[in-house]
């Protein structure tokens, strides 16, 4: 598709008198305004939830807190550890994110590297064996039944093993390893380094940039993962993640009410009504806690965006 193929009917819609700047200016103003709206729509909900979580609970319950925090207090957060199960869920979420990320990155780096080694027996076959899994899946129910058979249901490792071998990331590492000069490996091998030593001592330091990208995306995936909790951990409430707890708080209003009366009303005499927990306050403050890690690492991983989107674009 080139410029020439476009039909020639230029200048039709534009008044010749003010072709250049005035027309462009109008476009500019409209563009700025429209994007301000987009930005507002994306940012305001988060702002709204944050200011409500630190405002007077009676006011936020009535939907009065819209623009800035009112009657600021932090009871909703200091009280958080008394919400049953929340702390355990946070632990599980952190643990699965940590373990899952480290393993995903190491496996992607190792397999990516091994698939560039021409000495590897049946290299292309094994690469395809892994890469093709991107393009099909059995469907959730057969998957669940098979994970049960493997003993991964109601087991912490059910969060980890199904997610650690990611063909996308492996391909990304493979492409990156291929760009590393051969001489680097060869020099090390002449000095007597074996395959593994070359990997740990030479390749890992060299491919660090791509590993950082993968680590961030893997971590976000692990943190956000909800479906495996829902499908696999049906009999183990102690393995629930923060995402799942949050979902329960939103959808099961009744149990939340019971929770509210358990957590606060025992010392309701002490607490003023403005800071006493409500269903809304719990929902909002838990939301902030779940979204905060993402927001905190967000500025650091913005520079990986372009690389990240290429994860979806690379070919095997």
């Amino acid at each position, binding site marked *: *598709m080139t410029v020439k193929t*476009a039909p020639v009917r*230029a200048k039709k819609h534009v008044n010749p008198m003010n*072709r250049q700047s005035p*027309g*462009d200016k109008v*476009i*500019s103003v409209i*563009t700025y305004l*429209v*994007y301000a709206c*987009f*930005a507002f*729509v*994306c*940012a*305001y*909900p*988060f702002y709204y*939830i944050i200011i409500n979580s630190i405002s007077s609970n009676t006011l936020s319950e009535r*939907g009065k807190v*819209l623009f800035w925090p009112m009657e600021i207090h932090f009871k909703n957060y200091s009280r958080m550890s008394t919400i049953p199960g929340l702390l355990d869920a946070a632990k599980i979420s952190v643990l699965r994110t940590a373990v899952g990320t480290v393993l995903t990155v190491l*496996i992607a780096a190792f397999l990516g590297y*091994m698939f560039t080694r021409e*000495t*590897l*027996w*049946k290299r292309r076959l094994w690469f395809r*064996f*892994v890469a093709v*899994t991107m393009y099909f*899946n*059995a*469907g*959730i*129910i*057969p*998957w669940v*039944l098979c*994970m049960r058979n*493997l003993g991964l249901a109601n087991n912490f490792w059910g969060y980890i*093993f199904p997610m650690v*071998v990611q063909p996308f990331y492996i391909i990304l590492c493979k492409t990156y390893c291929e760009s590393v000069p051969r001489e680097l490996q060869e020099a090390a091998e002449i000095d007597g380094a074996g*395959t593994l030593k070359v990997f740990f001592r030479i390749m890992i330091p060299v491919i660090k940039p791509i590993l950082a990208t993968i680590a961030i995306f893997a971590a976000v995936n692990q*943190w956000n993962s*909800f479906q495996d909790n829902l499908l696999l951990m049906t009999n183990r409430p102690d393995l629930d993640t923060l*995402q799942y707890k*949050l979902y329960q708080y*939103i*959808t099961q209003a009744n149990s939340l009410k019971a929770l509210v009366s358990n957590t606060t009303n025992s010392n309701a005499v002490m607490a003023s009504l403005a800071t006493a927990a409500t269903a*809304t306050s719990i*929902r*909002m403050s838990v*939301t902030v806690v*779940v*979204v905060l890690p*993402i927001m905190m690492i967000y500025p650091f991983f913005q520079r990986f965006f*372009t690389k990240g*989107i290429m994860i979806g674009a690379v*070919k095997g």
Partner: protein
Amino acid sequence: MNKKTRSYVEFLYILPFLILVALVAYYPLYGWIYAFHDYMPPKPISSETFVGLKWFAYIVENPVRLADIGRVLVNTFAMSGISLAFSWFPMIFAVFLNEIHCRPYRKFVQTVTTLPNFISWVLVYSVAFNVLSSTGAVNSVLVNLGLIDKPIAFLSSKDHIWFKMWLWLTWKNAGWAAIMYLAAISAIDEQMIEAAKVDGATRMQIIWRITIPCLLPTYFVIVMLNLANFLSNGMEQYFVFQNNFNRKTIEVLDLYVYNIATTGRGNYPLSTAISMLKSIVSVALLFITNTVSRLVRGEGFV
């Protein structure tokens, strides 16, 4: 160590991971056999539970079930169709974002609109719930302005649910999807644009005649991917947004498969049979779109 031994040793290094792939990615395909059994957990399947194509026949023969599947397919097609029809949105979003010359502002817009992509659907639902509930921001403002008398039940109604789901999908993904187009825009040859400016082209003309044509190959791939995933909307978004009011119109194929396996007595074989058919159609769609892509661009995306 000679070369032959070495190549086997290296294979042994990757063998554990190959086994892992076989277990978590290939072994679930074996789970399809549950579609041919009368499987009721916890009783394992055996030769006695084998029923052949009973469940596949059941899909076609049971009128209630058939009507159900028809309804679910309509939902699936509608939601995928709306996504497909508006799939140009991220491209236009990127094109005009690129027209903003104030860098800090552009960066700000990009940062803020990309953030929702990195939060889970549960969080999206939580955000939606907090903002749209009867005392949430939107209803408060509307009531205060006197535009409505009583709060609108945005989430617990079945009206326009297909479109609402598209809106949330776009809210979450558009900023992120635009990044790819922004990368493609920055790869456009400056000289072409300079030449157009010298010839007196306006900004709209440059966008229409240069920028967008240069983005069409990328857009084409996105459309093909959309088509390949036409039946696979995923279940997470619809699962978190579903409730008793909107269940009939929100149920897409992926969610339906989950619902029939988990609600009531839980019909695992039927669910497996349907998802098996879906997987087969999906793979076929992938092949077709890839072939189309190969014919049009000379290059597939698989």
